[in-house]
């Protein structure tokens, strides 16, 4: 069995795990749901790691491809929240975006983007990895914020998620800038990708500063966290779709 096949099969197993978790939650079988969630995350981890050897040699970037790494990050963050915040009410909330983005990964064309001479740097996977982790924090933050706005006892954790998302996003921008400088001689380029990233950074920088103004209470900030996700998803999926033509080693490869 090739690494590509192991990666695909373990992803299907992961999706199966998330699916059983979803239905177990609907049937209020929390313990079963938790077990299958962990099974799903472990299989997903195997899938992500083996993506590094998808083409028969090690190349780190496919492990951090947004489409498959985003649901992994969401599931990982979900598990962290469950363990450290011990708020079981959050579990069913978290499960929905994990399932939704795993479904997108399931339906998305399989394959990986090929290596090229200028992404053989540690800063490249560092950039993609921290960027996707930041996106996951923003997505989960916005999702939990929806429940904060609509429910009386909604969790305030969305604020922490967005703040950590901003920290990871800043780190990703720096890694990306170092990579761009080493490869192309300039840390910033007049390109839609760079301007889109800068727009997201500025939006969440504004969010961070809201806590210093009294009129921006947590409910209003939740609204800003929810609105920000439009910017993140539009820019993210726009680039993913534009890169689709380059993908190899999958159904379209």
């Amino acid at each position, binding site marked *: 069995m090739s690494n590509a096949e192991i990666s695909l099969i373990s992803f299907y197993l992961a999706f199966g795990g998330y699916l059983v978790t979803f239905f177990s939650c609907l049937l209020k079988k929390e313990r079963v749901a938790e077990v299958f969630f962990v099974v799903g995350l472990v299989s997903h981890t195997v899938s992500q790691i083996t993506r590094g050897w998808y083409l028969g040699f090690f190349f780190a970037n496919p492990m951090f491809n947004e489409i498959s790494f985003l649901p992994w990050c969401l599931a990982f963050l979900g598990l962290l929240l469950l363990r450290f915040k011990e708020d079981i009410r959050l579990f069913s909330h978290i499960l929905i975006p994990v399932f939704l983005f795993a479904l997108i990964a399931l339906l998305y064309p399989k394959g990986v983007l*090929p290596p090229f001479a200028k992404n053989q740097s540690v800063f490249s996977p560092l950039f993609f990895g921290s960027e996707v982790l930041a996106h996951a924090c923003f997505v989960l933050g916005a999702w939990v914020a929806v429940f904060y706005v609509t429910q009386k006892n909604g969790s305030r954790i969305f604020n922490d998620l967005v703040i950590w998302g901003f920290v990871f996003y800043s780190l990703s921008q720096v890694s990306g800038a170092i990579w761009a400088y080493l490869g192309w001689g300039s840390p910033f380029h007049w390109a839609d990708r760079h301007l889109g990233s800068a727009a997201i950074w500025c939006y969440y920088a504004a969010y961070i500063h809201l806590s210093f103004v009294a009129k921006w209470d947590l409910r209003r900030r939740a609204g800003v966290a929810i609105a920000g996700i439009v910017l993140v998803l539009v820019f993210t999926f726009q680039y993913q779709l534009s890169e689709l033509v380059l993908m*190899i080693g999958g159904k379209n490869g």
Partner: protein
Amino acid sequence: MVKALWRFLASVNLSIYLLFLIALNLTIGAYYIKYYPDIFRPLNQMLFQEWFKIFGDGKSWWIFSLFFLLIFLGINTGACTLERLAGLWPKRRGSAFGQFFLKLSPSLMHIFFLIALFGHALSVFTGTQKVIPIKAGDIISVELGTMEVKEVRPTFWNNPLLKNPLRQCEVALDLKTASQIYPKEISFLHPCWFQGWSLHLDVDQKSKEQLPLRIIMKKDPGSRLILLGGAFMSVLMLWYFFQLNSNNKKD
């Protein structure tokens, strides 16, 4: 009057509105670049003032509004930081160094942000860039003297799935000034620095030649400020929020 102006300039409310406006402006700009690449992509090869002489028209309005907002944000950040530091500095003896540094960190982050912002301004308005196609044996006249391409050693991925299997390429150069010869070696992602210039190996993606190598030769005083400012700001931010989280848990 002066006090009111200072309060306005040093207000967090102003920072918030400016950041939201800049985010909107950048989003609009991203779409302008996406749909008019022939107009805006050359900005990467030339200084803004040179670019504006050739390409400046009605479609460049968003760059001017962006510059205006960024200058305004720079002034606002500077004023906010000064005001905060002025309030914080007299209290430095009242608390332990660690605690004081934690309080000082947001101001330091803002200073690093200003350094990065200034670096961007330098990159856009000053500096020089040249793109030089190269092959083994070339002797090219450059500003610092001559550049001889002594050797080109490409390596390739061994995988039939890859359409473009170029993996790495090492290029040996001799940089000759009036008085001396300096042997240098560059490869993809491993530039060399010489007398204020940085030399980056690049490949022309549009060319149909087998190995269309070129060297990007840059003199950009802003790059280091952008990288240093951004790196220190981000690492400090990571440390700061980690400390805040730990302190919250203890409380």
